[in-house]
């Protein structure tokens, strides 16, 4: 489904602030893979996601999605094939527009927007059904402005919006990091349900080691702009957090593990 070949990206090249975020990154995702991505700060996780989404352009290498070379496509053109949930709950939705309007927007992702009515009665019924999956009571508040919702509700909504039109690839960038534990758990459950139901190829960045192990069929650890560890299937299921930390130390060649990793 996704082939990232030899991708590199340096920010502020040639200056004192130069930072090589991606360094000869190679990664292949198969259809239906649910990959969790972990790594220390500056490892290149978000940069990789942004590169795939098209928010940033890579310096070298190629990105091929379902046989389509999307390396030079602008972000809005790639949006037809991707679903994204950002870390910031404010980013994924339009606060001044209603829930149903946001869903209608997401529903038309990848299609030409015409002068037909923005939301039809049939649309509304469809959205109510979809919102029920989230189990947050949002189906009763379809005309409420999204700005009135809590962070967790907005993230759940963003998740729904990202998957309304079944995307070829779902990108989740630490989407529960800004939520309290209870809401985070709810959102992750919803994620699991939706991904399973639609058999979506998914990449999920997370700082939580336990979540990284629990969810998905494959785990990737990034370090210094490339993939350092790649575990899948049975091996992944039986990983423990301690083992993961050891793997990280070995891969990064340092005994000091990141504070954030330890705190999970």
């Amino acid at each position, binding site marked *: 489904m996704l082939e990232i070949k030899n991708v590199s990206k340096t920010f502020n090249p040639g200056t004192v602030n130069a930072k090589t975020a991606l360094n000869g990154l190679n990664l292949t995702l198969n259809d239906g893979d649910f990959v969790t991505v972990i790594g220390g700060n500056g490892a290149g996780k978000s940069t990789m996601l942004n590169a795939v989404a098209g928010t940033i352009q890579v310096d070298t290498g190629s990105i091929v999605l379902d046989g389509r070379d999307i390396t030079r496509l602008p972000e*809005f053109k790639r949006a*037809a094939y991707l679903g994204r949930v950002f870390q910031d709950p404010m980013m*994924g939705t*339009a606060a001044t527009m209603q829930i149903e309007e946001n869903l209608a*927007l997401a529903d038309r992702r990848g299609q030409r927007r015409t002068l037909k009515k923005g939301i039809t009665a049939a649309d509304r019924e469809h959205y109510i059904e979809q919102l029920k999956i989230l189990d947050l009571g949002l189906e009763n508040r379809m005309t409420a402005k999204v700005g009135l919702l809590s962070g967790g509700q907005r993230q759940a909504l963003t998740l729904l919006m990202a998957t309304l039109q079944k995307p070829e690839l779902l990108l989740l960038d630490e989407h529960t990091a800004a939520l309290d534990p209870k809401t985070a758990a709810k959102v992750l459950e919803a994620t699991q349900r939706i991904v399973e139901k639609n058999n979506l190829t998914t990449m999920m960045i997370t700082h939580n080691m336990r979540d990284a192990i629990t969810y998905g069929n494959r785990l990737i650890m990034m370090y210094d702009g490339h993939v350092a560890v790649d575990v899948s299937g049975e091996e992944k299921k039986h990983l423990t957090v301690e083992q993961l930390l050891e793997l990280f130390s070995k891969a990064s060649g340092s005994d000091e593990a990141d504070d954030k990793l330890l705190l999970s």
Partner: protein
Amino acid sequence: MFFSSLLNAAPGAIAQGMLWGIMAIGVYITYRILDVADLTVDGSLATGGAVCIMLMRAGCNPWLALLCAFLVGMLAGMVTGLLHTRCGIPAILAGILTQLALYSVNLRIMGSKSNQPISVDKYNLVVSQRFVKELSLRNPLIPAIVTLAVLIGILYWFFGTEYGSGLRATGANRRMASAQGIDTRVTVTVGLMLSNGLVALSGALLAQYQGAVDVNMGRGAIVIGLAAVIIGEVLLGKVFRNFALKLCAVVIGAVIYYMVLQIVLQLGLNTNDLKLFTAAIVALFLSIPCWKDSVRTKKGGVRNA
């Protein structure tokens, strides 16, 4: 005496307010919906007036001339849009650049003259100040209301369509809009085109109303537009929630602004202080909701204590 002459002046103030209201709706589209600060309007207002008056002087039908003014206004908006989205120039600067260029363009359109009259006695004007107090079909209030009703209706429909929703999303959250597959470069430009088309239409009607187009007539227009938008929001924001009503609130804001201006004039104060007093009275209006709130909380607090 004061009130009777104020009442006498009301029709004129309302008519002017409504015509400026069209321009204020244009400003609302860029400032509130698209979240872009567009200063092109200072130039496109005069452009609309210039195009309309020169076409009519050449014998063109007045409604056709108004349509042409609208289209040329859209061109101006397109220039600003392209400068902003394709050349990476910040929106405010792009607007200023276009407005600067429009000064020369307007002079050219007007045949290198800075002022062109259009007499109601010689041409079939759509609106004219001459008839603002008449109880007849020639009264400019009538075409003003009809035009506003039609425009608000069209905009209400347009922003409810898929494309229109895309435009609103662009203004609400540009990153998210992009992530939803909307080409924000195009939607921003379309929004600017729509807005400046309306501003040019307003300029065309105003030029007919006052009987002449002047190359400087747009100077300071953005201030009036923003004042109208904010007055409308502040006074009627809680009451008018429907989008069409929000646009009406903007027009009402423009009318209030012109009524205030009229009041200041009728008060007969030192003429040099016209702008100072206008600003003071507008500031007073805008402070009302804030004071209402604080009075309410004080009262509530005492009751709960």
